[in-house]
């Protein structure tokens, strides 16, 4: 019944792209043009013109957005939606062989809800149970398409690392101090987390050297026997080559600094520190390394390592030169990243544009897709959101969302379609009850 109903929802979503023009809106472009009243022209999935004085192509679908606000589609740099089953392969401390790409569930309702919150792209990560976790994937919220169709083509693949309490939890199965370490998985301390990463990259460097030697021989026209492929080390080799971004879950300043030094030692870069709740303490070092910081706006105190979290984190990191974003890590929070951005105005005094950048152009940079999305500029993908009010206000509601010029969310159609969905649901339920009479199971809901 669930599945059938979902199919009904999917049927409503994407419309065929043609030429779309959005007029008279307040456009917060997050690009060079800043915020202005004007027009956006979308053709073949791309933004082809933006400005206050733009020719409207004939035959275009014109949307009058007078009094409304347009922003680039929101990008969530840390999400676990659309993952089928568990997000953690927790049996080993280095799980770099597993890939989120293999477990995408395009029917997760969280995708639609994220769209309804203005999100158009999201970085889907492995969990944080391992010092080195699985491979990550950037999706576009193309609700209604299959798993393959959700993938953000051209985004740099990533890998999840995790520091602190989570990766050491499996090393402390009894939780308490001095408890017998039955079934414990190394590591159990922050010292061990560092060691696990160093051990893995020691192996990966040797592995890379073997392949480099092989490649050199091939380049010389020789025909050597290729080395054996190691799926665990293959993705770490890509990290060493700069072809795969490291997104590292972390909380405390000590562990952030530790990973920077490990990366320095092994000659790779951390693309983003995720959560990075104490990033404000070591913003200087993060900026010097060239890493980004993707944090929560105001989560704190839910675990010991989150006790020094401050809502000023994003603002401090921004002021100290770290490219910063606000992420959700949560299918609920994901729906309102626009007002999470507003918290960086309240806490730390960022400007409106700086605040909105935390959920648009900055995460685009952190995912290596800022040439395609993150701002409303000519040549970029037409990933666009219309709000009825100022998107930094708690009273604003998403009205329409486009991805690649296709409309994937429309509040009016969602609301007006509800009676029909109820009817369809009832029909399906009746049909199911007719086929399989109630088994005396859970009782009325």
């Amino acid at each position, binding site marked *: 019944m669930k599945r059938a109903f979902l199919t009904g929802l999917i049927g409503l979503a994407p419309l065929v792209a043609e030429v779309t023009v959005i007029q008279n809106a307040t456009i917060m472009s997050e690009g060079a043009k800043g915020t202005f009243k004007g027009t956006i022209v979308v053709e073949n999935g791309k933004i082809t013109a933006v400005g206050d004085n733009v020719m409207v192509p004939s035959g275009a679908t014109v949307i009058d957005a007078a009094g409304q606000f347009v922003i680039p589609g929101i990008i969530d740099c840390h999400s676990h939606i659309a993952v089928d089953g568990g997000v953690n392969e927790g049996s080993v401390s280095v799980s770099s062989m597993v890939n989120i790409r293999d477990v995408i569930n395009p029917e997760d309702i969280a995708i639609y809800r994220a769209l309804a919150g203005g999100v158009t792209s999201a970085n889907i990560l492995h969990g944080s149970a391992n010092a080195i976790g699985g491979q990550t994937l950037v999706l576009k919220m193309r609700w209604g398409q299959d798993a393959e169709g959700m993938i953000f083509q051209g985004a740099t693949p990533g890998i999840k690392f995790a520091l602190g309490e989570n990766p050491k939890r499996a090393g402390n199965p009894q939780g308490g101090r001095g408890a017998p370490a039955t079934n414990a998985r190394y590591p159990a301390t922050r010292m061990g987390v560092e060691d696990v990463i160093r051990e893995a990259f020691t192996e990966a460097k040797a592995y890379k050297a073997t392949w480099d030697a092989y490649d050199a021989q091939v380049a010389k026209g020789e025909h050597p026997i290729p080395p054996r492929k190691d799926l665990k080390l293959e993705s770490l080799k890509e990290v060493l080559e700069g072809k795969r971004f490291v997104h590292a879950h972390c909380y405390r300043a000590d562990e952030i600094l530790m990973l920077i030094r490990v990366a320095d030692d092994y000659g790779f870069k951390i693309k983003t520190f995720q959560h990075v709740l104490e990033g*404000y303490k070591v913003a200087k070092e993060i900026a010097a390394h060239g890493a980004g910081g993707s944090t929560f706006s105001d989560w704190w105190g839910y675990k010991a390592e989150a006790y020094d*979290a401050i809502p000023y984190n994003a603002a401090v990191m921004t002021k100290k030169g770290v490219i910063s974003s606000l992420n959700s890590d949560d299918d609920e929070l994901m729906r309102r990243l626009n007002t999470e951005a507003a918290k960086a105005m309240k806490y730390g005094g960022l400007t409106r544009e700086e605040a909105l950048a935390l959920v648009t152009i900055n995460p685009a940079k952190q995912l290596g897709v800022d040439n395609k999305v993150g701002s409303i500029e000519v040549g970029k993908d037409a990933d666009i959101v219309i709000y009825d009010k100022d998107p*930094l*206000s708690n*009273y604003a509601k998403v009205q329409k969302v486009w991805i690649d010029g296709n409309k994937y969310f429309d509040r009016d159609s969602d609301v007006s379609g509800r009676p029909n969905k109820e009817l369809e*649901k009832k029909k399906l339920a009746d049909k199911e009850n007719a086929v399989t009479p109630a088994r005396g199971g859970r009782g009325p809901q």
Partner: protein
Amino acid sequence: MRKFGLLVVCAVAAFAAANDTVFIRGVDVYPVTGPEMKGVSVLVQDGKIADIGARVIAPKGVKIVDGKGLRLYPGMIDSNTQLGLSEISSERVTVDTGELGEFMPQLKALSAVNPESEHFGVVRANGITSVMTFPAAGGRGGRGGGGGQYISGQAALIHMDGWTWEDMEIKRDAAVQLLFPSIAMRGGRGGLANVDFADEIALLFGGGSAAGTYTEAKRNYETQVEKVTDFFDSARHYQKERTANLPGFKRDLKYEAMLPVLEGKVPVAVPASRERAIHDAVAFAEREHIKIVIMAPQELGKEGAELKAKNIPVILGRTEAVPENQDLPYDYAESLPGEFYKAGVKIAFGTFNNEFSRNLPYNAARAVAYGLPYDEALKAVTINAAEIWGAGDKMGSIEKGKWADLMLVNGDPLETATQIKALYIKGKEVDLSNKQTRLYQKYLARP
């Protein structure tokens, strides 16, 4: 960084010693219970609002605060937290909610409140001047606590400032938390308040596996209701014995704690997510002739008329929540407060949480976007909460004679970007700095 204390113009002579006396000049007053008054002055004396108006004159020597261009609202009230009782939610040693025992009405949240909890400073910096703090997290025994609990203790209404919990007390028995049995069963991650409760029930009934049939679930439910009824019967019997003062009468702390409930002086606060659970809880309260407040409902169903007719108030959970099943509209949680309001039910908001208590006003604002009138949202975080918890005569609005629990702000207090310029609890200006502002200043200045 907020500019607390910078608004003081002068402070000398007669009132210099009294730190709960102040004159706020030329401010736009939003009393909540009446129309706004632009550019008036408010005189606070001995912690209470002494006068409001355009012609009020500052007594000689009183501390004067310039409110020009600012707005004055009553401080906000969060109707469900565990503030003071829970510091780091995942570290059991720092958590004092969720005691063992089935019927524990004698437990008092108030005397376990740690006034030095870092949460107080953090939450009040966003304009929240008082909260309800509950002995259990809305679940049956709560995380790490005893399972199978029915009555978890007395919830206290407290101010967000004080040297001791006695200073902070507004009402130590503002409610008794009753986890009334429910037959409702739900799956999935809720994001709403009483997930633990439903999960526990599901566990009791073998939910999650195919074991429990509805018949079994119903039988369990009936047994549990009987247990609760028995406890109330025994308490009532005790009440009679006590009144009669029979020889050999033995004092019992549990039943003693139930007397204010039986006398209708203190309400039971009952989490009830489903329409049916609401109905059952209300029916029970009626049978027992006790006052009831419904906590964190997740649907209204056809209960609106009953709640309205019986004048039963409701504490709504966070609107920042996902619908609990995938068939529900995406804006289900945001729209729910508007539905309760339209049904004529008296509502207030609770965050059911410490970490997000500071976001109370934003939860109210979100309800406005999806159908709750603005004025009602404001009432739901001020006067309604005060009235529901029995302190409507002392707080919750800006009126003569009430405590000066006030926030001085530069805009709409339900909007995120609005800054709190000053906060008063019983007329005393409260420090807006906290652990987080201190860390911010320290590391912003790091070379």
